């Protein structure tokens, strides 16, 4: 009894803390959260009729990588809504489960989706979970198309898992090529995260390509989980060796610390990031002037004149109140690529997952797809081929470099 009382009191205490801590923005966030879950439930009820394809995906909807999961989910949802509004033969029912960027939780989330009756999978949003769920995709014969899990192991040895994003090695190669072609720097420093497959994959191929292109790597330093707050040693190494460009193959959270600490040290090289850098501007309280001039390679440019892109950006802004990043566009493209493949194959929702799996493999290995993140995309062994776009952050917004 006493314990129960203590528990209740503890809860009250924390709630009262929330009362003095929570601001208006927080409540809107929560409101959005409930809205989306309601939406998910609502779509779920429509499935009872059984005339829609059940598409399931896992992604970090909470946790440090939540920005990617939510973006991919929101992007995919917009595409699903558009297609369902057309009222054609192909209707979709999309369901996302949270994996908090954790492989074990992703497997549980995948199994939840499988129990729900998932026919086509959007795999996982981030690499670590996707490496776990893609194995299940392969075993269960459920076709998987990941919006953004870019590691090699995600698709390696799996005939039915495809990527909408660049594979890590391609990002590293493309970044080195871009830096060399645009002569952005001569002495280059790389700071990477050595316990992350994503970061390591890009780092390794970047180094190989940089050597071929005659770029000089003067400093090559790392960090890991639990050791990702103080970067003074890594930055000092780059600075003393005279690096004029620092390549950051990592997610935006450590990158934001690196930018802040470099400013504190008075070190101002050119910064070059990869798609994980996307999202840095949406961090609450982030001073955009720190990211001024940061360059990154991403296949999606929200400022593009392209009509489809503009309509997508407008819809996204209206529904979710922010400018979509590359992950949102990847999610959107995934749904349309599946839509195109299903249309070509004249698939019907009453087909089982294994039949759809074979049809989709056949389509994806032969079709050409035009999406927001690239034109005339084709797939070979699950990996996509498309052109990256160089972007630079100016006055707190992404601007195309070409």
């Amino acid at each position, binding site marked *: 009894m006493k314990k129960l009382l203590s528990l209740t009191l503890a809860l009250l205490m924390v709630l009262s803390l929330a009362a003095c801590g*929570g601001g208006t923005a927080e409540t809107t966030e929560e409101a959005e959260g409930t809205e989306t879950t309601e939406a998910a439930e609502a779509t779920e009820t429509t499935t009872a009729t059984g005339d829609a394809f059940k598409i399931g995906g896992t992604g970090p909807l909470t946790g*440090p990588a939540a920005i990617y999961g939510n973006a991919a989910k929101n992007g995919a949802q917009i595409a699903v809504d558009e297609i369902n509004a057309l009222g054609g033969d192909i209707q979709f029912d999309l369901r996302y489960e949270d994996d908090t960027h954790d492989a074990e939780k992703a497997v549980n989330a995948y199994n939840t989706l499988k129990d729900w009756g998932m026919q086509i999978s959007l795999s996982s949003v981030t690499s670590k979970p996707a490496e776990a769920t893609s194995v299940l995709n392969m075993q269960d014969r459920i076709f998987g198309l990941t919006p953004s899990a870019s590691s090699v192991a995600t698709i390696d040895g799996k005939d039915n898992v495809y990527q909408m994003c660049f594979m890590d090695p391609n990002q590293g190669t493309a970044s080195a090529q871009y830096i060399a072609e645009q002569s952005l720097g001569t002495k280059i420093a790389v700071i990477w995260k050595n316990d992350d497959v994503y970061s390591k994959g890009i780092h390794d191929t970047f180094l190989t390509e940089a050597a071929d292109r005659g770029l000089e790597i003067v400093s090559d330093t790392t960090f890991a989980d639990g050791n990702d707050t103080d970067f003074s040693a890594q930055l000092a190494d780059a600075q003393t060796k005279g690096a004029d460009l620092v390549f950051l193959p990592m997610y935006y959270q450590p990158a934001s610390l690196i930018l802040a600490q470099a400013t504190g040290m008075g070190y101002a090289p050119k910064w070059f990031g990869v798609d994980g850098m996307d999202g840095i501007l949406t961090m609450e309280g982030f001073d955009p002037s720190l990211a001024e001039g940061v360059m990154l390679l991403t296949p999606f440019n929200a400022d593009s004149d392209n009509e489809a892109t503009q309509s997508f950006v407008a819809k996204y802004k209206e529904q979710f109140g922010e400018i979509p990043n590359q992950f949102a566009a990847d999610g959107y493209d995934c749904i349309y690529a599946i839509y195109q493949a299903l249309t070509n194959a004249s698939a019907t929702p009453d087909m089982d997952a294994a039949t759809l799996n074979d049809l989709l493999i056949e389509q994806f290995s032969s079709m050409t797809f035009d999406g927001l993140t690239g034109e005339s995309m084709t797939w070979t062994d699950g990996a996509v081929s498309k052109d990256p776009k160089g972007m630079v952050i100016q006055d707190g917004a992404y601007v195309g470099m070409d």
Partner: protein
Amino acid sequence: MTFLSFLISGISLGSIYAIIALGYTMVYGIAKMLNFAHGDVIMVGAYICFFATSRYEMPPIVGILLAVVVCTILGIVIEKLAYKPLRAAPILAVLITAIGVSYFLQNAALLLWSSNPKVFKPIVPTGSRITLFDGQLSISVITLVTIASCIVIMIALTTFTSKSKMGKAMRACSEDKGAAQLMGINVNATISLTFAIGSGLAAIAGVLLCSAYPTLVPTTGAMPGIKAFTAAVFGGIGSIPGALVGGILLGVIEIFAKAYITTQLSDAICFAVLIVVLLVKPAGLLGKQIREKV
């Protein structure tokens, strides 16, 4: 000159570890328990200061004071609800409870403040720095503020425990709880006071930590908490000067290992040094010489 700048970064990082380590060491000295929730109190302190300064645009000093007040109350409440009922229980039960409180705080923060990283507004502007030796050495102001705060806190705390009546009561409790009680010292009140001071310090540590490394997530306090615990053991747990020495040494070794050996293995090197020290001096660096444990 780079050596000097690494040394200063190391001392600054170490000062933060030292302030956090104080909380561990004081609680251990008196209650003989490891309060693993300490790291998460740091996180709560940082969030309170973040909301005060960024959302409600209060001046930094108000944010810090508010964080200290909230964390002090939180510390007392945690002690009353979670640890006091277990005072007679085996040490292991208390330890598990502490881990439970730690998870509770992290998950409560996750629910209340969401997982999206927030960028802490430093108490001194980012980029403000002092240049010495014709621009060869540049030190950011926050580094100096951190080191200065650490020194002030250490002096204040040492004076408090050696001069004031409450401080003497704390030392008495740490030496022999039963005897202290017989002498008319209120042991329960003294333990509460220890938690209050430790948690108040945690709030300051949180603000300093997030000013130097400005991203804030619900797990922000976890790793620095573990490192500070290591520092406390390194210096000799239960000893206030030990926390200072342990914290600063750990910070300096960490930065030097990254700068001069390899960035890949800095944590491994750091903890290897700890193992060696504990093999040679099992009570920690200052664990034996200092008899008065607080």
